[in-house]
């Protein structure tokens, strides 16, 4: 877009008048001659120039110079493209930003706009205060210079809730005028905006800057007819708009990813639409949040909680084949209570367990087959919730009579009891209020719940701890115990109305809900949550990013249910016990209403063409022209030889602003090139300079030996920083283990595992001579265990006598380093490897071991200085020399093994080897 051009100091342009004069002066001055010493001048004497060319400056050079000068003059006059319109006014200025969830989508525009407004205020020298309505400043208005605000501008962020306009209006009415206000609004009519407008207008003139970007809100998902429906609303409704709604969650491997994606289309003129997800329950239960793809902001993210999760509940009743009336069926009330919120499955227990339900409910089932019992115990240990209801069969059986079985929370007394019946004394019992340790704490107990029969728990030291609901006389009604990762709950009454009226009451549903058997169907009411304390697991920020909540204080249930979102109650996922509740910015009944402003308030758009300062461009142009002029002058004067001409043109190209960038190898590339062009041995940098030096010297010594004795000619060894460096280039990694070595990061471990899986080999050296045996005893050994724990290491065994490592180059049976320990471990050979009759070796044709673990301090035995002399003393006298030699031979074998794999295991070599072995 071509805008207007203005000059900061137009008076300077009068200097352009001088250009013709300059033309005349420049034309008169010819280029200076070169002086040269030349003996042949004797032969030149008397010669005449047949043409006289360059005593005047050529016209094009003149033009170049004049253009350079004109560009400089124009540049210094300060040309500005699209100069900003000037807003008049003086006195203190208040810039108000909504900074709400609805501002997040075009937040950079808003910040840029605020920056431009600050520039304006700075030019006018007005004191400014910037106030975010979601974060009202305490105390006085922070009036400061515009320059003081500019660096703080990027730290302003939108908050994930709507501003409290009522509080803001209160705050504004406490300010002292006169005060001009510029309001960067989000375009939504938050309740109370009118009051704030009035309060601000009372202080002084008010201008509003409001974006024309649409506001889109994503409501929490609903579960209807087996489908998940997510509603979207928007503010403006003129053009059709297609958006993608993405369901995020963990995949079966526990990695967060997009589980589903569906389009939602706003018709032209429509302000509401829906995205429909038809997902299998397994997938649905894993969804953690929905969001609109490509739109940033807390309003387009909605977290899911237990409301969307439908648990799979397996119902099993004793005597399922009994032809009972429906209301007497042990499962009738459970079905009624659970059907709306859970997926029920029924069938044989062994079949049901295969479906891995979340909950198994056994209604009056006393004994299970050993197979079933084993399966069920296993399932509970893996995190299942087993709920049992008592009944005549249980009361009559011997289950949990003598000791608590794994599938019962408490021991039971024989026979149970019956109270308040026709044949017994006393009144039917009522429930005692739930203790605060109980998951039922806070539930209101209806007066009509009566218990007339129950099974009795044996008194036990643990009974009190396991009781989560009891009768008024203190006898347990519901007991719970945990087994493994799961738990077992026993209702001491039947699941039908035979023994009590509990299944008839609403309390029964609530109790199931609290046990997380069922899930609450809709947003919980304050009353439902009374008495519970919820802690934030994850919270949303204004841009809709989910963050760890850290240590935020707990929130009482009634506040969580109803209080508006604020700094103390951020949108996010709140958890209590096994239940989770999501608070979202947008709720199902959120309605987007466009803000309306009084007619007298000027409303400007958000977009503004920033003024472009052309001064730098003009001055650069002038500089380039002068450079061209210098080269052209030199050329005219004959002072550029051919080579210099090329260099000058190159310099000119390099000096141009868009000059090509020389491509250079980065340090990593150079390193990769070095490591890949030759075989390179590598060692892990431990952070201990002495150990690292020894490793380097050791691998250098080994490289020298390889160079002398074999066709492997390695490059100098390289130290590898596990956190930074790429490992894939190295055939072998020597890793000396020190007791105080830092654990590599998760990313480093991932690279290490990739390295091992792709055929790399790590040689661990604890350097402790294995005095403590494998992997324990010494500090290095213990460190090795921690270091290697996250690595993908196969089963290990000590090097078998027929391992390829013993014959890849030299025939060896010992692998000494500075120490002489036999314990060197590597990947166990396959169990089915067997020696063929007549062969000395087993047929081990596959796989190079990914790790080799030992403690012989090989690097010290290999270490050589620059002149090739050994650095460390090994053993004593000639025996020590022999040991060093064997250590070097082991090193050669090792590198050969790494490089050639199991080639030497090929049976082709057996006859020759046999001969040498003297067999």
């Amino acid at each position, binding site marked *: 877009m071509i805008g207007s051009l203005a000059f900061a100091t137009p008076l300077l342009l009068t200097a352009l008048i001088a250009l013709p004069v300059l033309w005349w002066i420049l034309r008169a001055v010819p280029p200076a*001659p070169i002086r040269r010493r030349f003996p042949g001048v004797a032969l030149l004497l008397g010669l005449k120039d047949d043409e006289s060319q360059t005593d005047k400056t050529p016209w094009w050079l003149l033009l170049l110079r004049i253009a350079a000068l004109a560009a400089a003059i124009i540049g210094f006059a300060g040309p500005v493209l699209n100069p900003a319109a000037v807003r008049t006014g003086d006195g203190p200025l208040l810039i108000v930003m909504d900074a709400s969830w609805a501002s997040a989508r075009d937040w950079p525009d808003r910040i840029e706009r605020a920056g431009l407004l600050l520039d304006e205020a700075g030019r006018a020298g007005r004191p400014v205060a910037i106030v975010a309505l979601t974060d009202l400043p305490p105390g006085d208005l922070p009036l400061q210079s515009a320059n003081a605000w500019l660096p703080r501008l990027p730290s302003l962020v939108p908050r994930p809730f709507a501003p409290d306009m009522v509080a803001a209006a209160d705050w504004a009415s406490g300010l002292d005028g006169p005060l001009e206000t510029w309001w960067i609004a989000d375009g939504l009519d938050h309740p109370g905006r009118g009051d704030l407008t009035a309060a601000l207008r009372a202080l002084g003139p008010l201008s509003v800057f409001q974006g024309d970007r649409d506001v889109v809100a994503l409501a929490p998902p609903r579960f209807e007819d087996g489908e998940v429906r997510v509603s979207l609303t928007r503010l403006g409704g003129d053009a059709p708009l297609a958006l993608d709604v993405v369901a995020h969650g963990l995949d079966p491997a526990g990695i967060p990813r997009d589980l589903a994606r569906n389009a939602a289309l706003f018709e032209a003129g429509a302000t509401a639409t829906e995205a429909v997800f038809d997902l299998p329950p397994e997938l649905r239960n894993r969804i953690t949040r929905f969001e609109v793809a490509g739109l940033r902001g807390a309003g387009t993210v909605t977290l899911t909680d237990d409301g969307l999760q439908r648990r799979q509940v397996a119902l099993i009743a004793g005597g399922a084949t009994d032809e009972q009336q429906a209301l007497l069926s042990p499962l009738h009330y459970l079905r009624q209570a659970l059907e709306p919120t859970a997926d029920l499955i029924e069938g044989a227990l062994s079949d049901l367990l295969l479906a891995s339900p979340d909950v198994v409910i056994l209604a009056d089932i006393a004994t299970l087959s050993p197979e079933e019992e084993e399966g069920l115990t296993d399932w509970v240990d893996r995190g299942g919730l087993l709920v049992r209801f008592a009944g005549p069969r249980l009361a009559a059986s011997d289950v949990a009579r003598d000791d608590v079985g794994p599938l019962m929370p408490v021991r039971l007394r024989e026979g149970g009891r019956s109270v308040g019946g026709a044949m017994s004394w006393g009144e039917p019992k009522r429930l005692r209020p739930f203790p605060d340790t109980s998951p039922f704490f806070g539930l209101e107990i209806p007066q009509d719940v009566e218990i007339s029969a129950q099974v009795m728990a044996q008194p036990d030291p643990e009974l009190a701890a396991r009781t989560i609901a009891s009768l008024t006389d203190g006898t347990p009604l519901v007991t719970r115990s945990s087994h493994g990762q799961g738990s077992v709950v026993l209702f001491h009454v039947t699941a039908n109305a035979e023994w009590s009226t509990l299944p008839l009451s609403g309390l029964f549903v609530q109790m199931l809900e609290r046990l997380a058997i069922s899930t609450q169907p809709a947003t919980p009411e304050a009353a439902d949550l009374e008495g519970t304390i919820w802690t934030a697991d994850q919270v949303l920020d204004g841009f809709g990013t989910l963050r760890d909540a850290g240590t935020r204080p707990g929130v009482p249930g009634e506040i969580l249910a109803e209080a508006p979102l604020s700094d103390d109650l951020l949108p996010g996922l709140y958890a209590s016990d096994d239940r989770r509740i999501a608070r979202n910015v947008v709720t199902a009944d959120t309605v987007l209403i466009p803000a309306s402003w009084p007619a007298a308030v000027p409303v400007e758009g958000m977009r503004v063409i920033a003024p472009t300062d052309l001064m730098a461009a003009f001055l650069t142009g002038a500089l380039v022209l002068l450079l061209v002029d210098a080269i052209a002058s030199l050329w005219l004067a004959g002072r550029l030889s051919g080579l210099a001409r090329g260099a000058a043109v190159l310099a000119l190209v390099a000096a141009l602003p868009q000059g090509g960038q020389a491509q250079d190898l980065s340090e990593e590339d150079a390193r990769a090139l070095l490591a890949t062009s030759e075989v390179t041995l590598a060692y892990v940098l431990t952070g201990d300079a002495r150990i690292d030096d020894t490793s380097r010297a050791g691998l250098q010594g080994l490289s020298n030996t390889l160079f002398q004795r074999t066709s492997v000619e390695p490059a100098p060894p390289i130290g590898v920083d596990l956190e930074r460096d790429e490992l894939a280039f190295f055939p072998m990694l020597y890793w000396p283990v020190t007791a105080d070595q830092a654990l590599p990061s998760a990313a480093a471990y991932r690279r290490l595992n990739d390295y091992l899986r792709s055929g790399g080999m790590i040689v661990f050296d604890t350097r402790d001579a294995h005095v403590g045996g494998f992997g324990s005893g010494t500090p290095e050994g213990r460190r090795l265990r921690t270091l290697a724990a996250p690595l993908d290491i196969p089963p290990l065994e000590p090097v078998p006598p027929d391992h390829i490592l013993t014959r890849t180059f030299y025939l060896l049976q010992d692998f000494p380093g500075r120490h002489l320990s036999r314990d060197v471990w590597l990947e166990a050979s396959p169990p089915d490897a067997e020696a063929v009759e007549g062969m000395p070796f087993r047929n081990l044709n596959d796989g190079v071991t990914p790790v080799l673990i030992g403690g012989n301090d090989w690097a010290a035995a290999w270490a050589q200085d620059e002149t090739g002399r050994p650095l460390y003393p090994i053993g004593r006298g000639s025996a020590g020399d022999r040991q060093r030699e064997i250590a070097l031979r082991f090193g050669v074998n090792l590198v050969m093994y790494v490089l050639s794999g199991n080639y030497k295991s090929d049976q082709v070599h057996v006859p020759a080897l046999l001969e040498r072995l003297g067999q």
Partner: protein
Amino acid sequence: MNDAALHTPESLRSRSEAVAATLPALMADAQHLAATVLLGVHGRKRAGMGDEFWQYRPAQAGDGYRQIDWRRSARSDGHFIRQTEWQAAQSVMLGVDDAASMTFTGHRNRPSKLRRAQTLAMALAIVSVRGGERVGLTHLAEPPRGGTAQLMRMAQALMDSDALGDYGAPKPQTMPMGGRAVFLSDFFGDIAAIEAALGRAADREVKGALVQVLDPDEEVFPYDGRTVFESMTGAIRFETLKARSLREAYLARLAERKAHLQDLCRRTGWRYHLHHTDQPAEPTLLWLYRALEKVRG
């Protein structure tokens, strides 16, 4: 033109004193160059005074007893006289132009014309002395001599230049009758002086060679633009507005000068050779050696 590339007039005395104890730099260069020429025995092919054995001949009447080679005579009945080859020493006079114009070099990696001329002259002197000739410098009044000491003296004399002018001309002071002479110069100076010198040499039956030493820049004239050309002392100036347009005329004049020199040589029985300082010195030395040998025959 750095110090090492050129034996500058200012440093001549100090340098010659400094090198007097050892082999001068010039001697080193020249020895090196001379080593490339294989010296054959070039005696007179007849018996006479000399060191080399020539023949045994039967003693005749009139031969002194002292001349009889008793060792040879004892193997037969007759008496034999051992004759040596006649090795009459020839004199080679060398003239090196050391005027200011010779100090020019067109590139800092090329030796100056003077340095090349001195090196050639000394190398020729060494070759000649090894061949048993006597050598000397034309501009000195001393007669030619043989031996290594004479080489040292010549080296010092070559460095001890006192020429002041822009262009030099051969001014031979000593020219033994029937000797050989070599003049090394760029021959940019007055052609009449060269003609006079050659004429005088021809009068004294001196044969020899002119070696014109030129810098490549002087051959191709790679100049352009508005230029003021100055002689090496700055005494002569010539200004041109467009140097390139002068190139043809300059080259024509240079060719004319070369042709004149060749013509001069042909008339006096001398030989002419053109040497460029960017070329190695060895071919020129070989040419000189053969040229002198030929006229010697």
